[in-house]
């Protein structure tokens, strides 16, 4: 697919920002996203090529405006829904439940 991921040679993406002494993860949710994508992969719900395909299905503007682990979470949702393991409705309902309970 001639998707937004295929960016080799594009101009005007901005400066390369190099962070000194960068931590492995910046936030706790990144740790959880990393672990979930790999464990569901390891559990055989999908393979690595499927994970890349799922990420490439993100709307282009959203892909460019989100971070690496947000891409991963998008991919995980797509793949677990394809697999029938976890639906978007279930996730939306749980988000609403957590929000109502004051979790943020």
């Amino acid at each position, binding site marked *: 697919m001639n998707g937004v*991921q*295929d*960016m*080799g*040679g*594009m*101009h005007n*993406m*901005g*400066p*390369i*920002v*190099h*962070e000194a002494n*960068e931590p*492995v*993860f*910046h*936030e706790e*949710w990144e*740790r*959880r*996203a*990393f*672990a*979930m994508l*790999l*464990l*569901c992969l390891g*559990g055989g*719900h999908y393979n690595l090529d499927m994970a*890349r395909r799922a*990420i490439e299905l993100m709307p282009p503007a959203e892909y*460019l*405006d*989100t*971070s*690496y682990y*947000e891409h991963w*979470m998008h991919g*995980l*949702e797509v793949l*677990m829904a394809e697999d029938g*393991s*976890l639906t978007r409705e*279930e*996730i939306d309902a*749980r*988000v609403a*439940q*957590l*929000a109502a309970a004051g*979790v*943020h």
Partner: protein
Amino acid sequence: MGAHHHHAPPSDVRIRVRAIESLLLEKGLVDSAAMDKIVETFEKDIGPRRGAEVVAHAWTDPEYRKRLLENGTAAIGEFGYTGLQAEEMIVVEDTPKVHNMVVCTLCSCYPWTVLGLPPVWYKSAPYRSRVVIDPRGVLKEFGVTLPESTEIRVWDSNSELRYMVLPMRPEGTEGLSEEALAELITRDSMIGTGLPKTPAEVAA
């Protein structure tokens, strides 16, 4: 991408991750201890020190250097550092005439078990888009200026082969131990966006 080096996610990302995690745990699709363990492995146990150890050994042992360049997977395997996202390793050698740089333009492939998880800039659109068309400009942004006559080879990691650069050993490091040499070898020098430090820079 905003003013920050990494996109600051809205709180709905955090809550969504929590929602998904709680559902996967309830359904028994992921195990909580396994989640903690894989995070800990990549946060605490694995990092660019591994690659630096390999490079320092190659700098001091010509036979090992030969093996490393001929069959990176086997030679890095001697250290036990091949693995997830470094199942197949190719090591490319810098010389006075050739400088190597590694990228993955299509996603963010990187030799995880040899160099650790990649930095944000490596995964970012600015680096992925630009290094193949303007490697010299990218190097300049990293503060590296090479002679005009140097050939720059950019390795686009589009398959399951993973690359590591074997940088040149800095002058004035004769007699240093492998441990001392490893201190000179930065992560960026093994990606190709930097050069090893000099002993003076380490002391500073």
